[in-house]
C-alpha cells in the first residue's frame, strides 16, 4: 500500500520514543509504576491513575484481530480494497493497524485470529507497525 505524505505521523516529544522504537523493530508500550496499568497511545503519565512514574516497555508483538472493515472507497494512491483493523495486544491495549501477508477478505480475516507485529519502513523517519497472521515469530 503506497503512502500519502499527508497521512504520515508527525511525532511529538511525548511520542518520539514510540516511532524510534518502531524504526528499530520494537513495539513500545508504556506501563505505570504506581498502578501497573499498561497503556497506549503514548503519554508521559498514566491515564488510569495520573501518576507520572511511568516506563516504556517492549510489547511481545503478539495480538489478536479485534475488529475491522475493508475499505472499498479507495483514495487515488491505493489500488485495491484494504482492511483497516483494530488489534488487541497480548498486554491489553488495542491499536489500529493494517493486516499484511493475508488476502484482504472476510474469509481470510477472522476475528480473534492470532497475529504478530511486523515493521514496514515508510520513510527514513517513519516505520509503521503492522500485523500479519501469526507464525510464532514475534518476540
Amino acid at each position, binding site marked *: 500500500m503506497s503512502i500519502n505524505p499527508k497521512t504520515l*505521523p508527525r511525532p511529538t516529544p511525548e511520542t518520539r520514543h514510540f*516511532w524510534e522504537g518502531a524504526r528499530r523493530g520494537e513495539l513500545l508500550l508504556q506501563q505505570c509504576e504506581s498502578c501497573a496499568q499498561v497503556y*497506549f497511545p503514548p503519554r508521559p503519565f498514566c491515564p488510569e491513575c495520573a501518576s507520572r512514574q511511568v516506563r516504556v516497555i517492549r510489547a511481545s508483538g503478539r495480538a489478536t484481530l479485534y475488529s475491522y*472493515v475493508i475499505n472499498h*472507497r479507495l*483514495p487515488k494512491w491505493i489500488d485495491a480494497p484494504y482492511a483497516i483493523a*483494530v488489534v488487541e495486544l497480548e498486554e491489553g491495549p488495542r*491499536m489500529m493497524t493494517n493486516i499484511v501477508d493475508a488476502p484482504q477478505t472476510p474469509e481470510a480475516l477472522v476475528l480473534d485470529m492470532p497475529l504478530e507485529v511486523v515493521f514496514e519502513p515508510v520513510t527514513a523517519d517513519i516505520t509503521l507497525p503492522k500485523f500479519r497472521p501469526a507464525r510464532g515469530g514475534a518476540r
Partner: protein
Amino acid sequence: MKPGSVAIVGAAESTQLGLVPQLSQIQLHADAALNALADCGLTPKDIDGLACAAEWPTELAHYLGITPTWVDGTMVGGCSFMLHVRHAAAAIAAGLCSTVLITHGESGRSWVGTQAMQINQASLAGQFELPYGVLGAPTMFTIPVLRYMKEYGLTHEQLANVAVVQRQWAARNPRASQRDPITVQDVLDSKIIAWLFHVLECCLVTDGGGALVLTSAERAKDFPTRPVYVLGTGESVETPMISQMQDFTSSRAFRVSGAKAFAEAGIRHADVDHLMLYDAFAHLPIYGLEDLGFVAKGEAGAFIWEGHTAPGGKLPVNTNGGGLSYMHSGMYGMYALQESVRQLRGTAPAEVPGAEISVCHGVGGMFGASGTVVLGNQRP
C-alpha cells in the same frame, strides 16, 4: 436545573435541504436562523445568547447583527447542538441571558464557503490512526460493528433492516431526500463502501441548516408557537480515536449522557412517546436503543426487526427518515432536534399521534461525544 423551566419557542430548518449550491455555509446558518426567528416572531435584536458549531459564534453574531451577553461555540461534532441546548437551558436558568439562538448550517455536499476538516498529523489520531488508510467516517465509525456482531449475534440482515425501516418513515415525509421503499436485499445488493457496510447503510451527504430559539418557560407562553419544554439533558465525551473506544459494543458517552438526561427529566422509558437516535450509519440506532436502556444488550437488532420502531410500532424512532434517508449534512444533530420539536408541536409529516415526550439523542465524532435532550409539550 428544574425540568421544564426553559422552552424551545422557535424552530426551523433552512428553506431548502438536500442540494443547495446557491448558498454558502454561513448563509445556510443565517437562512435557518431567520426562519426560526420568524417562526416565533423575533428579530436578531431580540437575541442575547448565541450558540453554533462549524462556524465561530463571532462570525454568526457579526453576520446576523446580534449583540450577545452569552456565547457557546462548543464543537464536539454532530451532537454539538444537543450540548448547546443543554448549555443554553443552564444559562437561561442562571440568568446569563434570556433568549438564545442556536444555529447550524453546513454545505456538506456542495462545499460552498467551507473547507474540509483535516486530522492533525501530530495529534494521537493523526499519528496512530491516520497512517492506516482511514478515510473519513465510513472507514472509522463502522469498525466496531464486526465485534458487536460476534459478541451478540446481530445478523447483517438485521443491520440492513435499520435502513429499510427508516426509509418507511422517509416515505411519509415530503422533505426527505430518499423516499422510495427499499428491502433488506436492496441494501445488501447496494455498493460496498467499507465492508460490511453498503452505501444504503451509510448516511446521505447533503446541504442544509437548522436553528432553535430558547427562552424561559415563563416567557414561552407569550410566543405564538406551542412551547416545547426542555425536561432533561445529558452530555459526555469519550475519545477522538475509534480504536481507543473502551467497549466496541457500547458507547460510554451514550450511557453517561442518556442516564443523566433521563434522571434529570425524571422519566422512565415507558414514558417516551417518540425517539430520535442520530443515525450516521445503520448501527447507531442499535447502540442507541441499548445504551439508553430501551432494550437489553444485544436485543436491539431483533427489536427493530420486529417492527417496534417502524410506523405503527410501539416506539417510533427517527420519524423524519433519519440521516440515512432524510438528510445528513455532516453534523445531523440539529435535524434530529427539529423533528422532535415538530412531533411535540403536532406538525411532523409522519405524526406520532398524541406524543408528549420525545427523547433526542446525538453522537459526535465516531462515538467520541454524545448529547441527549428530553423534550415535552406539557410543563411538569
